[in-house]
């Protein structure tokens, strides 16, 4: 199977292109997609697929998401690039009520493919309304699938799965990783299944459960810990709905110590559910409480330095893991 080294956003784009070639009911809409997309994902799309299937949109996020719901119910497979995850709160009705519930409310059991791309997280000074991590909304409101790739390979493979999935998928791309590069399989049959976590590093002393931007940081922390004699396992969840509980629980019952790390706000973030559920399901296997690291519970500041000071760093992850190992 041949590979190519490419950027995360480009890999997402490649996944989309391959699926668009195979299925002409897929179209993409978003602000600026005709000119290649704000972050490069849509480069070249319009020249291959034309403006029938690659549509620019105005500043109207509720419209974009609602249109996706309507088009999907009518049998198309819309992909909407929402520009920023923060805009989930502008299109909340369309996403967490319409896309999530329309079939349910109407008692329908039909396929409904729709991929909503939410670029989430800090990207270097984009400010508190362009850096939000909103993935927890997709966990709380039932009816959607929720993914957050952390590598270029997964960005491609999950995009392809999302486009073959008969249910709406919130595809959270990680702004901070948009230009990170990695080996990406070129085989058009390659996919990454929704709902399968990946153990990025095996370890026996504690389990770091993470996803998205915090995967590379956790791996770096694990290397540092290794040099101190602490052997950390690092699990990249990749999907939050469904969440790969088998993988998580297998690890935790083996290491007896767990911590969750994410870029989303700590309070009532995804880590709250994960920690709550680990202790529910593996209480007597735990030798320490499940710890959580997330962004400080303050809006992100505009400056890139303060932004980084608010979210978990390799240092804070290492420190917290060290503390956990010592409990």
């Amino acid at each position, binding site marked *: 199977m041949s590979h190519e080294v490419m950027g995360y956003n480009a890999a997402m784009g490649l996944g989309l292109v391959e699926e668009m070639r195979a299925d002409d009911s897929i179209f993409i809409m978003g602000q600026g997609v005709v000119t290649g997309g704000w972050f490069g994902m849509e480069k070249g799309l319009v020249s291959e697929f034309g403006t029938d299937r690659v549509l620019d949109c*105005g500043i109207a996020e*509720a*419209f974009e998401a609602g249109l996706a719901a*309507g088009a999907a119910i009518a049998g198309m497979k819309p992909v909407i690039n929402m520009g920023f995850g923060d805009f989930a709160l502008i299109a909340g009705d*369309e996403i967490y*009520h319409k896309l999530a519930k329309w079939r349910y409310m*109407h*008692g329908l059991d039909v396929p409904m493919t729709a991929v909503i791309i939410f670029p989430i997280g800090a990207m270097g000074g984009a400010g508190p309304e362009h850096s939000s991590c909103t993935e927890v909304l997709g966990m709380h409101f039932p009816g959607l699938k929720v993914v957050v790739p952390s590598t270029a390979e997964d960005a491609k493979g999950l995009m392809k799965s999302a486009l073959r999935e008969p249910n709406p998928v919130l595809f959270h791309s990680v702004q901070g990783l948009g230009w990170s590069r990695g080996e990406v399989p070129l085989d058009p049959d390659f996919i990454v299944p929704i709902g399968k976590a990946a153990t990025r590093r095996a370890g026996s002393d504690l389990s770091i459960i993470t996803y998205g931007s915090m995967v590379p940081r956790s791996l770096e922390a694990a290397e540092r810990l290794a040099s101190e004699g602490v052997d950390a396992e690092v699990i990249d969840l990749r999907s939050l709905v469904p969440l790969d509980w088998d993988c998580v629980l297998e690890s935790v019952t083996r290491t007896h110590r767990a911590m969750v790390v994410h870029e989303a706000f700590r309070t009532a973030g995804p880590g709250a559910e994960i920690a709550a559920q680990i202790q529910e399901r593996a209480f007597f296997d735990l030798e320490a409480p499940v710890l959580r690291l997330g962004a400080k519970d303050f809006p992100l500041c505009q400056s890139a330095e303060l932004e980084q000071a608010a979210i978990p760093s390799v240092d804070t992850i290492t420190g917290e893991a060290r503390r956990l190992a010592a409990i």
Partner: protein
Amino acid sequence: MAAPEPALLTDMFHKMAVSRAIELLMLRHTREERFSGWWHPGEGQEAAPIGAAAALRSDDYLWYQGRGCAWAIGKGMDPLPILGDLLGKMNGATRGKGGGVPHWSDYGLGIMGEGATLGSVYPLAAGSALASKIRKDGRVSLADFGDGTASRGTFHETMMHAAAWKLPLIYFCENNGLLVGTRTEHVSASADIANLAKGYGIPGVIVDGQDAVAVYEVTVEAVARARAGEGPTLIEAKVTRKHGHYAGDPQHYRDPDYLKDYRDPLELLAARLSGNEAARLIEQADAEVAVAYEAAKAAPEPDASVIERDLYHVA
């Protein structure tokens, strides 16, 4: 103007009579029997849905707002799935998830459903309209809404794009002047919703919404425009809300003058039929609805397993 053929008139009247029978039944049912949720009666407001739906093909997409049942009947649904649903039975259109606020859909008939957060149908209808434009399937999408719902932001976001893209989309407003107990004119820039069309450079047509034939005629034109690729039309049907906002609404707010010009859509349409056709169709409709009602009542109730059904589709 495209006046309806006699056969179509008969069909429209039959459907209106069926709707009327269901409406009257529901008014009685919610008053006298156990009912889960709120019923938003449409009795007296059937002409606009019946007239507009008659102008649509059965594969055109309809996204409706939930007052009464005439849209569903107009677009071709049978009384049974409607009544089964309202009574929350397993033979309802939603297969056990039903109750007060209608969420009927029927894909074969292009009945796409209702959003209980009002104003959600605009972009959804644009979605099916865009699907038709991409697939070139010649279908039209109609978004039905009330005057109060014309204020939602999605009205604007959607029409800004639908007009620019000439989507085969019809905005159909049933303007009864009321938003629950508020006179819409107190909270709306324009008492005539059709005025809003001017901003988007699309036709805005006002029609007597108690007269199904008049509604049919303007809708035929809007449909032709949409199918020809000329873009959206905003139709405003002036209608009367004969009843409270929901069945049982004490209506303390009701202006005594509001109903003084009320005209019954069924009578108006009956005047277009010959001989005793109207009486015959009403009798037939009543009988059909009575049978459906019995079947709905007799049908099984859902058990709790219904809750866990239909959330995800498994390929």
